[in-house]
Each structure stands twice: as structure tokens, then as C-alpha cells.
């Protein structure tokens, strides 16, 4: 049996896209780089101590003193270990990827909730995106966006966007039929039904998706470092390739601290919006 030339086909398609859609990729690339740089600039603007104080206050406002305490000690440790600028690079990458995932993912999720046809096409696509090894995305990402932080963000978005789409869809579908019926019966337009009834009620589920998306994009920082994204992931990668156990542990610990702070922050934020709704 002759081999199906799947690899050649893919290369042909990618090659064509590279030739003809270059202007589009350049545009996207420029935009993403701009966002990441802006975040990094903001994060690096204050002195680390001032940053930590602000972080502590924010943590106290959204959560409780325990979250504030953990954030302050965690980030002090990061500063002390000497990974501050790398951490800020990674944080910018993660937040950019999460932001893009949310901005793109929520509308797609809403679309899937409304249209069975869309859901039928997009759901298997999401399965594909989540199960395909993340490394594979790096190749076309590099092809289209060369190396650096931009292909890192792109790969992170592809890997991290599915939970936002899935849980947005689920959240809207879970809104009881009687409530949407009531919204219709009083003469709501579809927009009013969506923004006044469905989205507010889907919010807890939707936010769980956003939280997952943030965590998944954080898990991509090491992989992104393989294609030249600077940050704490690069430190882990270097430690692994050079077998530096101590350095590897330090850098890994920084990622863990970052993960816990991001997770608790987002969770507290959602809980807070939930409490406001009297749950």
C-alpha cells in the first residue's frame, strides 16, 4: 500500500499560507508583541518592592489576608532568588495568551451554544487541539511567526483556549429552559437575552473555564521557551539541558508560586462576583 503523502500535503498548505498570508501573520505578530511588551513594561515599571506591595494590597482586596500573605512571601522569594525579570516576562506571556483566549474563546463558546452546527464542527476541533502534543504547534508557529515570544503566545493560545470555549458553551446551555423562555416571553431581543440572562447565569461556569485557560497557558511557558520565548521557562529549560538540579528546582518553584497566586486570584475574583449575586 502506498504511503498517503499527508506530510507533503501539510507542508504544501503551510508553504502556501507562508507565501500568501505573510502580511496577516506580520500584523498579528506585531499586535501580540505589542501587548506582551506593554505588559512587561508595566510590570517592570515599579521597583519590585513596590510591585509586591501593590500585589499584596490587591490580594487583600479580592481575597483574604492569607492570599495577601502568600503572594507577598512568594514574590519576595522570587525576587530573592533573582528571577524577577524572567518572572515578569513569563507573566506577560501568560496574561497575553489568557487575554487572547478569553477574547476569542467566549464569542466562539456563545456561538457554539446557539448553533448546533457550529458545536458539531468545533467540539472535535477542540479535542484535536487539546490532544495533539503541544510541541507540534511550535513548528507552524515558528514557520509563521519566526522565533521569540509571539509563537510562544500563539502556541499557548491554541493549547489553552479549549476550556474557555467549552465551559462558555456549557454555562449557557445549563441556563434553565424556563428562564430563557421567560426572557423571550417578555419580548427580549436575542442580545438582551444573552447579556441580561444567559451570560450572567453562565458566569460561574464560564469563569471556571477562564481559570483553566490561565493555568494551561502557564503550563506552556517551558515549551514556549524552546522557541526562544524569554522568561522563567527558559531557566527551567536551561537547567534541564545542563542537568543543574538546584537551578531547575528554583525555577520550577517560581512557576509553582506563579501558578498558585494566579489560580487563587482568579478563583477569589469569581467567588466575589458570585457572592455579589447572592449565592
Amino acid at each position: 500500500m502506498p504511503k498517503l503523502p499527508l506530510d507533503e500535503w501539510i507542508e504544501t498548505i503551510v508553504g502556501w499560507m507562508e507565501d500568501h498570508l505573510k502580511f496577516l501573520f506580520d500584523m498579528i505578530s506585531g499586535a501580540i508583541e505589542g501587548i506582551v511588551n506593554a505588559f512587561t513594561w508595566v510590570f517592570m515599571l515599579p521597583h519590585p518592592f513596590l510591585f509586591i506591595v501593590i500585589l499584596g494590597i490587591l490580594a487583600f482586596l479580592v481575597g483574604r489576608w492569607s492570599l495577601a500573605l502568600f503572594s507577598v512571601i512568594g514574590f519576595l522569594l522570587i525576587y530573592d532568588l533573582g528571577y524577577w525579570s524572567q518572572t515578569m516576562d513569563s507573566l506577560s506571556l501568560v496574561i497575553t495568551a489568557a487575554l487572547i483566549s478569553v477574547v476569542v474563546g467566549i464569542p466562539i463558546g456563545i456561538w457554539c451554544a446557539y448553533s448546533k452546527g457550529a458545536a458539531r464542527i468545533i467540539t472535535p476541533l477542540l479535542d484535536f487541539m487539546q490532544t495533539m502534543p503541544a510541541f507540534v504547534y511550535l513548528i507552524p508557529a515558528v514557520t509563521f511567526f519566526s522565533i521569540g515570544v509571539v509563537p510562544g503566545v500563539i502556541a499557548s493560545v491554541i493549547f489553552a483556549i479549549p476550556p474557555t470555549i467549552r465551559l462558555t458553551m456549557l454555562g449557557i446551555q445549563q441556563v434553565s429552559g424556563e428562564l430563557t423562555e421567560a426572557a423571550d416571553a417578555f419580548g427580549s431581543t436575542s442580545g438582551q437575552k444573552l447579556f441580561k440572562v444567559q451570560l450572567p447565569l453562565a458566569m460561574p461556569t464560564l469563569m471556571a473555564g477562564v481559570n483553566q485557560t490561565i493555568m494551561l497557558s502557564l503550563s506552556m511557558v517551558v515549551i514556549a521557551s524552546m522557541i526562544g520565548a524569554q522568561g522563567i521557562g527558559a531557566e527551567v529549560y536551561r537547567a534541564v539541558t545542563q542537568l543543574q538540579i538546584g537551578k531547575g528546582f528554583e525555577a520550577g518553584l517560581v512557576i509553582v508560586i506563579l501558578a498558585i497566586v494566579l489560580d487563587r486570584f482568579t478563583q477569589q475574583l469569581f467567588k466575589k462576583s458570585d457572592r455579589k449575586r447572592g449565592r
Partner: protein
Amino acid sequence: MSILQLHKVSKLFGPHAESCVELLEQGWTKERIAKEKNVTVGVNRVSLDIEAGEIFVIMGLSGSGKSTLVRMLNRLIEPTSGEILVHGKDLMKMNKEQLRTVRRQTISMVFQKFALFPHRTVLENVEYGLEIQKADKRQRREKAKQSLELVGLAGWESKRPDELSGGMQQRVGLARALANDPEILLMDEAFSALDPLIRRDMQDELLDLQEKMKKTIVFITHDLDEALRIGDRIALMKDGAVVQVGTPEEILTQPANAYVERFVEDVDLSKVLTASHVMRRPETIMADRGPRVALELMRERGISNLFVVDRAKRLLGVITAEDASAAMRGGQSLEDILIVDGPRVHPDVVMNELFEITSLSKVPLAVVDDENRLLGVIVRGALLGALAGQNHPKEVIPDAETTAG
């Protein structure tokens, strides 16, 4: 003209449902269509005229199509065929925009499980209908507050729906439906989720509200007692079709077929029949006649008391034969022996309450209207007779459904 007219409205579910409407016309049964065409008949060619200001109850067991029918009245469910005219305008021919206007201004709905928005306060729930019409914020707040006051929930504005009891939640549902002052109110099993005592209260309250508002209410229920209690007219549904339309009395006393008959046979008549059903023609005498005439009349009719009325048939009181003969001997007039504090009831009082009144009184019960005009008399024997005589002949009907539930 009726405010709401339905003409051969049908809803069929399944593939090629439209083509099966024709089969219904040709006399195919629901079962045959289900078997051969794989199409379910939800509502089968229902035609109704609902008048402005009446409480029109659509009643039937679960699966009789009543909930589907009410949802077609505001097109939450699209009818497969038929016409629905609101103020003579065909709802089916309206575009989205026109339909929205009808839903916003003419027809409101109250739901079985309340369907309150859990993320909004009571006040925000009530003002929802006005909010989506982009009404001025202060104005809609004001209207929502008035609406809440109407259902007795003033002071609960800032609570969340889940902080309220079931009965109160449904009051919010009612207030929400009333806030945009619709002409037609659709109530889909609105009180079915409430426990019996609360349900009774809500029924009373709805009747009170209706006195003031005079809305057209289409009320869906599976509870016959509820239907008889609040309905001006009742449409009884079975298998998607309307079996009988009539006043509660007509349904009870002249059931259109065996199904209706069996349906209503378990009804406690004493809670349904009113004084106007059991009263007899009263024997009366004018006040200016003498005791002798009165006695003669009583002897002739074989009775022991007489109602005394004026020329406008207004009830003055009652006299007994004993007093009349004493008066005759003592030369007194009828007015001297008149018992003026005998019991009087309105024709709408149910039999249940009549029993107690008659048992406490020596003289027969007078039935009078609002102007105190004598309409009839209730004697104990007739009361019991009405209960016994109204029992429907029991027939064995092969169909399985017996109780409303």
C-alpha cells in the same frame, strides 16, 4: 370581538409535521398518525374565543397539550397550522419585531416554576419587562414598586428570589407579569408548585386582583377544583383537543361526553355549587297585607313561613305562621311580627357554607342580590337533595386516566 381568537390551531411534532395536519382533517386519529407517520400530535385543531376581562381556564391532565397550547398564544412554540388573532391581528403573520411588541405590551406570562432570574433582586426581576423596552429608569422603578405593592410584597424589593418562600416567589412572578400592564395574562400552572393552603390564598388573591384589574387571563391547570374556583369559563382538553367549553356550572351539570362526566364525578359538589343552584322560588307577601292573608297563603301552600317584601321585591323580613295567628288574634300588623334579622346570603355563596348557616337558623335562608332583592329561598331539604340529586350516574369507561394529577 373577542380579544383572543384561536382558529384550528394545531401543533405536531416530528418529521414533515405540516403534511400531517391534512391527515387530521381527513379523520386520522392521533394514534394512527403516531404509528404510521412518526409524528406526535400535541395540539389538535383547537378553536377558542376568549373574551376580554374573563378568566379563561384551560384544564386537562398532563400530556393533554394545555401547556403547548398556552405557549402558542405568545409563540414561544410555533404552531404548525392555524390562526391566532390578538385584537383581530394574526399573530402568525407577525415578524419578529411585531411579535416582540406584542410580548412587551399585550401578553405577559407567569410560569409554573416561577422562572425568576436568580441573579437579579426582586425589584430587578419585576422591572425586567420594562427594562428591555428601555423605559426610563426612575419610571420603571416606580412601576415595578407599584406592581409589587399590588401583590403585597412592598418592602421586599432588594431581596433575592431564593430568599423568598414559594408563594412569595410566585407573587414576584405575578408582579413581573403585571408591571408592563398587559391586557392578556398567560398563567401556566401558576399555582401548581405551591402547597394547597398557599395555593388557595393565591387563588383568592388572583380573584381579588382581577376585580380591580379586569385583565384577560388564560389560566392553565390540571386541578379541577382550581378550574371551577377561578374560571369564568373552562375549556377541558384531552389528547390535544378541546372536549368541552363552558362555565363551571355547565361543565358540572351538562358534561358534553363520558370523558368530561367521569372527569367531574369526583368533584365535591358542596364546594362548587352555589346558593343560586339550590335556591327555590320564594313565597312572598307584600308588607301592607294583614296577618289573615298571610296565614291563608301559608295554609294554601302548606308552608310555615313567608318572606315579606316591598314593591321593588326588596326583602324586609320573614314571618312565621305562629306569630301570624297570634297577630291576628291581637290585631297587630305584619310589621309588628316581622323577623328582620333572619339569615341572608348572596347567590355566590357555596353550598359548603350554606349548611352551617341553615343549621343555625330557625327560619329559611333568604338569597338576596346586592340591592337586597329577594331571589330565592334555601330550605334544608333542598340542600341535601341538590347534593344527592347531582350525583352523576356512574359509568364504566375503559380509558385509564381517572384522577386529575
